């Protein structure tokens, strides 16, 4: 059931169009990520949902109600900021209680709810600490508890983990996701970290320069990138320059070597240039009989532990592929000639838009 609708949102500052036609329907309880590089309008879109910015064009509906003109304190959204933004003059318990107190809840009710919240973020012992007495990770947990204590309709998080160090980032990521699932709260999560977006989200909105590039599940975004931008932004994708030979049969050449795609390349003229995407993990060393085969030379080998990342030059295309470490045999050496095998199903043509 559709819960949150962003309908044709646009935001223009002066002459600068920061958000261009943003259309999105979010299900109740869904976890959506906005993924994109710096300045692409993620925060601006989120702030329109929160009510801090008014869309230049478009409407926002929550549960069927138009909230576009509603002030932030009327919207029942919870927000978590990159900088934690805990109130410095209040203890942990007072911070978590703030929204309840403002809503006029009884002291007894507030006490119970704050206790529950602190239990939920696993910090019941820190109730009387002040923000300056806590680590960044602890502060962000408290900020999360504060945001959900009032049972908001929507939870908005703007790069909540980017000020934390790597280890805490990963553990807090899991905690946020678990909590979100348990509470079933509709969530928008802004990040520029693809790993975060891929691992946490039900669906991802990939954004670039104020445009929605693609909306889809992590699986779809990763394996079927719709545009060249998405392909290059998400994961280490190999882009191959190919020439079309027989569009209807999917036959093409890469550096003069004939291969084919699984899908027909309808509408592409013979002899036209084409960009193809191929995931590193879809490539094997050693050609198979049935699939595609490309011959090349190993240009680089990086031993990353469990994974060995190998770069292979095929004419002017450079492909990256990952193999698992095999304790029984050392990785190939630079300069070695190799055959690369991959299945036609793994080749996707991407648009240049």
């Amino acid at each position, binding site marked *: 059931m559709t819960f949150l609708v962003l309908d044709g949102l646009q935001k223009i500052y002066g002459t600068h169009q920061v958000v261009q036609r943003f259309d999105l329907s979010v299900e109740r309880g869904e976890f959506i990520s906005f993924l994109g590089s710096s300045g692409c309008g993620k925060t601006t879109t989120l702030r329109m949902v*929160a*009510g*801090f910015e008014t869309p230049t064009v478009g409407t926002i509906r929550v549960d069927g109600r138009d909230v576009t003109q509603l*002030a*932030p*304190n009327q*919207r*029942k*959204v*919870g*927000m978590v*900021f990159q*900088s934690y*933004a805990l*109130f*410095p*003059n*209040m203890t942990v318990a007072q911070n978590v209680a*703030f*929204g309840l107190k*403002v*809503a006029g809840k009884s002291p007894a009710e507030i006490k119970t709810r704050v206790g529950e919240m602190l239990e939920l973020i696993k910090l019941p012992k820190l109730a009387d600490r*002040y923000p*300056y007495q806590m680590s960044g990770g602890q502060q962000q947990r408290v*900020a999360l508890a*504060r*945001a959900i204590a*009032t049972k*908001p309709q929507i939870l*908005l998080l703007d790069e909540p983990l980017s000020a934390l160090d790597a280890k805490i980032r990963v553990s807090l990521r899991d905690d946020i996701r678990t909590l979100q699932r348990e509470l079933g709260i509709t969530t928008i999560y802004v990040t520029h970290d693809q790993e975060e977006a891929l691992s946490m989200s039900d669906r991802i909105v990939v954004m670039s320069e104020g445009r929605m590039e693609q909306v889809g599940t992590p699986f779809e975004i990763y394996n079927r990138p719709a545009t060249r931008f998405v392909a290059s932004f998400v994961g280490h994708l190999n882009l191959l320059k190919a020439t079309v030979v027989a569009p209807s049969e999917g036959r093409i050449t890469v550096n003069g070597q004939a291969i084919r795609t699984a899908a027909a390349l309808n509408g592409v003229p013979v002899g036209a240039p084409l960009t193809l995407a191929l995931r590193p993990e879809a490539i094997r060393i050693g050609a198979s009989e049935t699939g595609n085969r490309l011959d090349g030379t190993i240009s680089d080998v990086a031993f990353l532990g469990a994974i060995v990342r190998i770069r292979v030059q095929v004419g002017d295309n450079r492909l990256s592929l990952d193999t698992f470490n095999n304790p029984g045999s050392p990785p190939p050496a630079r300069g070695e000639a190799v055959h690369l095998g991959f299945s036609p199903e793994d080749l996707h043509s991407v648009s240049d838009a």
Partner: protein
Amino acid sequence: MEQPLEALALPTAQPSRPLRRLPTMPLAWLGVVPFFVFALMFLLLPTLFLIAGAFQDPDGHFTLQNLRDLLAPNIISAYWISIEISAASALGGAFFGALLAAAVVLNGLPGWLRPTLMTFSGVASNFAGLPLAFAFLATLGRMGLVTVLLSSLLGFNLYRTGFNILSFWGLTITYLYFQIPLMVLILTPALDGLKKEWREASQTLGATPWQYWRMIAFPVLWPSLLGTTLLLFANSFGAVATAYGLTGSTLNIVTILLYAQIRGDVLHNQNLGYALALGMIVITGLSNVAYIVLRTRSERWLK
């Protein structure tokens, strides 16, 4: 004898440590030596000298008479007027200074206004003493420019309203000239320290702007506000040249009384002067200590 021997032996046993430490330590300390010398000669020693003097009679014998003399009605009233003027100018400075600082920090005024105000405040907060006194005499004195302009252009006689620059309120207004800018200078960083996210977080949690100010912004600011007011108090409590330049000896405030004791006119009693100064040190000291305590508290929060 054993300790020094061990200490001497240490460098040969562990040569790397003393070698690395030796060159940096003395150099760093050298830099702060002038400060310590200065503080010792012009702050610590005079204070000790003054405290000692307050407990001596002119022949150098110990006495409590000087302190008892502080209770004389004219001296009590001098302290009282000083405290009143300082409090009035501190509260006035704090109020108008806070409004000014809030106006440039919080609201969307044109960009050039803030640096201009800050530069002006930097200059004005240091403009005190005789030049300030004469500047005010020249503008708001009986024959001052503003006074004359008011009466000739608008037919408004300022002095007929009871105003007198050589009075309690005259002095207070003059002090405001450096008190307001000082408040602006100190409070602006504190207002900058109010994070935009606090307001936004409070809004998403359902708070009204008034609730934000009452429950977050004001509690965060009040140590700075109160502390700075105390600093302003101490600042005008100790001002002497401005007061003397402006009112001569017509206004009976402590610093002028003190000046009279030390200068050596009819009232001359040096040891009573020391006692007067001691009383001032206590009052100024107390308000400064309170200022530091409050400031530490607000800085802890704003980290």
